[in-house]
């Protein structure tokens, strides 16, 4: 037959649609990255390569402030959520089933199910009441909300790693009279480390991304990088936003690549 060899897995049009979609998925992001290096003041015309928007963003006090706040919140939230998620993951995979396990699952996954806007509204009301009662205006609200929101994202990779791990080493350690704590420190923790690192990275990325919850519960002057950008988008857009977006993008891609490599080596 002169026709192309018949392939059972081919559907006409599927490959072109898929490839076009991949291009369209990346095109807008790539455009932002390219225009962040634009020397021209206009957002539409290309005026040659320049780093001036990065310099402008770097020198902008509001941006510095928001960046620092974002990093502080994301670091604390990633640490806290990863620690508590590790404990919960060990409790829900390394032990015999117990009553209430489903409740714990539902609670941990709850931030993934409830729309972010609803959580944001709930926290707004709750924290407003606490503000009135205590007068506290600090970063604690944002850190608490971000830590809670990041728990499922830290939990999932840790749990996946635990489920793929062989129990025999831990049993062997116990047979050799290791205490549960020693078994955990010397056996479980080192084996689990890539999962924990992966969970922490996802938690960090998610905290950096969270915009709706932050926008609702931040006190005055507590902009994070995403809420700062959201505020800027309401006004005239400057190419400075492109530069900030690109920098944030680069950080995310870096962390995700590390995550990808960490989880890939398993098995």
């Amino acid at each position, binding site marked *: 037959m002169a026709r192309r060899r018949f392939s059972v897995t081919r*559907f006409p049009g599927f490959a072109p649609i898929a490839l076009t979609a991949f291009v369209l998925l990346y*095109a807008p992001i790539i455009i932002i990255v390219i225009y962040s290096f634009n020397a021209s003041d206009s957002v539409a015309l290309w005026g040659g390569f320049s780093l001036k928007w990065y310099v402008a963003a770097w020198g902008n006090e509001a941006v510095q402030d928001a960046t620092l706040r974002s990093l502080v919140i994301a670091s604390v939230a990633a640490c806290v959520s990863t620690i508590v998620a590790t404990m919960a993951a060990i409790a829900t995979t390394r032990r015999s089933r117990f*009553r209430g396990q489903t409740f714990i699952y539902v609670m941990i996954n709850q931030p993934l*199910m*409830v729309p972010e806007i609803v959580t944001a509204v709930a926290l707004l009301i709750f924290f407003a009441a606490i503000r009135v009662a205590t007068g506290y205006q600090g970063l604690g609200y944002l850190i608490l909300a971000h*830590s809670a929101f990041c728990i499922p994202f830290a939990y999932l990779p840790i749990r996946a790693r635990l489920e793929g791990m062989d129990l025999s080493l831990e049993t062997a350690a116990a047979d050799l009279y290791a205490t*549960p704590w020693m078994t955990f420190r010397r056996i479980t923790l080192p084996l689990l480390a890539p999962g924990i690192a992966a969970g922490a990275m996802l938690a960090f990325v998610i905290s950096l*991304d969270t915009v709706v919850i932050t926008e609702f519960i931040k006190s005055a002057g507590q902009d994070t990088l995403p809420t700062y950008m959201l505020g800027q988008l309401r006004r005239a857009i400057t190419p400075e936003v492109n530069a900030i977006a690109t920098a944030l993008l680069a950080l995310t891609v870096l962390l*995700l690549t590390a995550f990808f490599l960490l989880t890939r080596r398993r098995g």
Partner: protein
Amino acid sequence: MAAPPRSPARTSWLLSTPALLLLIFGAAGPLLIVLVYAFLEPGEYSGVVWQFTTEAWFRVFFERDIFDGTVSPADAHLTIFWRSLELSVLTTLTTFVIGLPMAWFIATRPANQRAIWLFLITIPFWTNLLIRTFAIMEVIRNQGILNSLLIRLGVISDPIQILYTETAVLIGMAYVYLPLMVLPLFAAIDRFDFRLLEAGYDLYASRWQVLRRIVLPIVRPGIVAGSILVFVPSLGAYVTPRILGGGKNMMIGNFIELQFGQGRNWPLGAALSLILLAIVLIALLIYVRVTTREDSRHG
């Protein structure tokens, strides 16, 4: 089990307690306060007056004339509900039509390439939603790439107004949520036994028949999962309609926000949040029922 302690259940609960406490105070608990607030009277500037009333629920669907007290359906609210529902359904359909070929394409790559293609889908998935929405805005603006390109090619002479329309919101949401459709579809197709296709073709089925009668029924759990994963965040979307829709094309999420801002009607906002939550939970229940039924059918 490693070193069985005297009371395993108690240790498990102790280990889970810090996570549970954080989730109760930082996420789930305050939802109960929303339930209470939905039955209170709005305060004059913001907040509530502690007086029981079902007025907020009434106000969701009806409005009362200030002068003669006649009751009529709240058309503005119904328009917003309808727009949210319509845009969410359209977003789900659009992502399915584009996502199915993408998932199929990834699943039929050689094993060593598959991880790379999957990674290419995952990057946008984890990339800041705000940045992706902003990127779409840059493309469809009147002076944006799309319009400039079309004008230079001579297709149009004046820029088309896409930004701040419902179409813009649809494009943005489909773009932003596409990976949520592709990933579960891929998971379903990946487990697919391709010998079934051979069997179909041996029995003289056409490509279309194979797709409709063999592929779609078998990857159904993936379709359901992807649809729910796209539909749920679409319905609650806030950032995308706010940036791409402007003030005129509000969705439920923006309408809720309005009640806590200029609207100054916290109970109404609380009632709207609960309605949104209820719809989402129903969608999730359908999902759980469909997937568990599929599981039991396949053993």
